């Protein structure tokens, strides 16, 4: 059973991630009064990309991307999906926080190797944006960990089963609001789509990726989408005992994200950081203080 979970939870995550990508395109098209591609379109793209012979810029160009996707895959082993969390006893929230670094770092090394100015700009923006949302995010996570006095994410989930969703329990309300405010930035949707910005910097870090590279990058993107949503559901919306309910919760968050994506224009990077470091950070800080004061 354990082995099956180990193998299939990353695959499930990939599947849901890719599904979300396709759904996102469909939903966006519908919002824009278009017919839109089929939901399977990302899959078609990936098949096509895998068959193309792309240019490679060197070993780090390959390894970095592989590392990035592998890192994201490993996170899914630690994140509870419903009750499926095959490696949750090998490390808790701190491990997840650090594993979340591998993705961007691998991507950064890989696209850095390509020596493309656009990629450099994209990576710089990516790191800056991460710096922007990590500040409130860490405050939120610390508030959660302090309130539940554990660093294990499965325990946080199971404790919410007793107390109700963290977002709606008293000392964590502010943290929940802050998390909600930074969620678009963590998912990388507009108005925080500064990293790829195809019109501006030729899709940023992805500029030199073609063929299989782009396939990996797409999968990584899908996984990052999955992880962002799943983390939010687990931490704030009480997770779920049942994978189906969990998926439904994820779907709700997903739609929230897409709606935001559909109606906002893109911010500049400095505007994004300024936003992220102002209101969400202040609220998250207040939330942490609240937790410290009220918690025993």
């Amino acid at each position: 059973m354990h082995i099956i979970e180990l193998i299939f939870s990353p695959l499930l995550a990939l599947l849901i991630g890719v599904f979300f990508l396709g759904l996102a395109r469909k939903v966006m098209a519908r919002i824009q009064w278009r017919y839109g591609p089929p939901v399977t379109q990302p899959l078609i793209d990936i098949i096509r990309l895998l068959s193309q012979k792309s240019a490679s810029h060197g070993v780090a160009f390959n390894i970095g991307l592989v590392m990035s996707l592998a890192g994201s895959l490993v996170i899914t082993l630690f994140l509870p999906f419903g009750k499926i969390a095959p490696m949750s006893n090998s490390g808790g929230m701190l491990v997840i926080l650090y594993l979340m670094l591998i993705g961007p770092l691998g991507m950064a090394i890989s696209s850095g190797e390509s020596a493309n100015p656009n990629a450099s700009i994209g990576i710089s923006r990516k790191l800056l944006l991460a710096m922007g949302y990590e500040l409130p995010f860490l405050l939120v996570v610390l508030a959660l960990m302090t309130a539940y006095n554990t660093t294990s994410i499965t325990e946080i989930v199971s404790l919410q089963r007793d107390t109700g969703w963290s977002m709606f329990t008293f000392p964590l309300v502010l943290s929940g609001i802050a998390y909600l405010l930074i969620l678009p930035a963590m998912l990388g949707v507009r108005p925080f789509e500064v990293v790829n910005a195809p019109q501006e910097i030729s899709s940023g870090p992805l500029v030199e990726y073609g063929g299989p590279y782009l396939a990996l990058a797409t999968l990584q993107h899908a996984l990052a989408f999955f992880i962002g949503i799943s983390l939010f559901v687990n931490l704030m919306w009480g997770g779920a005992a049942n994978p189906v309910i969990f998926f439904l919760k994820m779907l709700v968050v997903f739609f929230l994200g897409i709606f935001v994506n559909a109606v906002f224009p893109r911010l500049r990077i400095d505007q994004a950081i300024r936003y992220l470091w102002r209101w969400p950070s202040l609220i998250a800080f207040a939330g942490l203080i609240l937790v410290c004061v009220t918690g025993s």
Partner: protein
Amino acid sequence: MDRNQLKKWFQNPVKMAHKYSLHVVYFCTGCGIIEIPPSITARWDAERFGIIPVATPRQASLFIIAGYVSLKTLRSIIRTYEQMPEPKFTVSLGSCPINGGMYYDSYNTIKHLEKYIPVDGMIAGCMPRPEAIFVGVTHLWTLIDKDMADGYKRYRSNYSAYRANQEKILGKLEWPPLFPIHGEE
């Protein structure tokens, strides 16, 4: 359109994927740029066929050259074409890249794009409407189906000739030859 025929997908997924995931890099000059946006926005919505614009040739599989091609831009066109991963398809849009169009006697506009890079399909008109683009794409599907959209193969096998043409009109190119040129060694 055979996108929903699962049997074909199982028979030859790669070819099918190539047909229905055409990521386009546009090269637009003059009136070319006017006709592209309608085709990808709500009115005609190219995305329903999997056709979306991308920002870099590395990610693309289709290259649409719309509008006249001056000497200066030819250089970029060649560069961009060579950077696209194979298999790749080229479509020239409008009369100008086909035969010079209204610039037939201009001193710095090239008249026949296919002398410099291989072109798989040409959509005539001045300017062709979006519908024509769609017709062109369906023709391209047919060509892909029949393995006749083989411009990239022609480019490779006749590289020395293409390169000679390019250098004849542009002078010495700053990048090294993509494929070994016959007769040099």
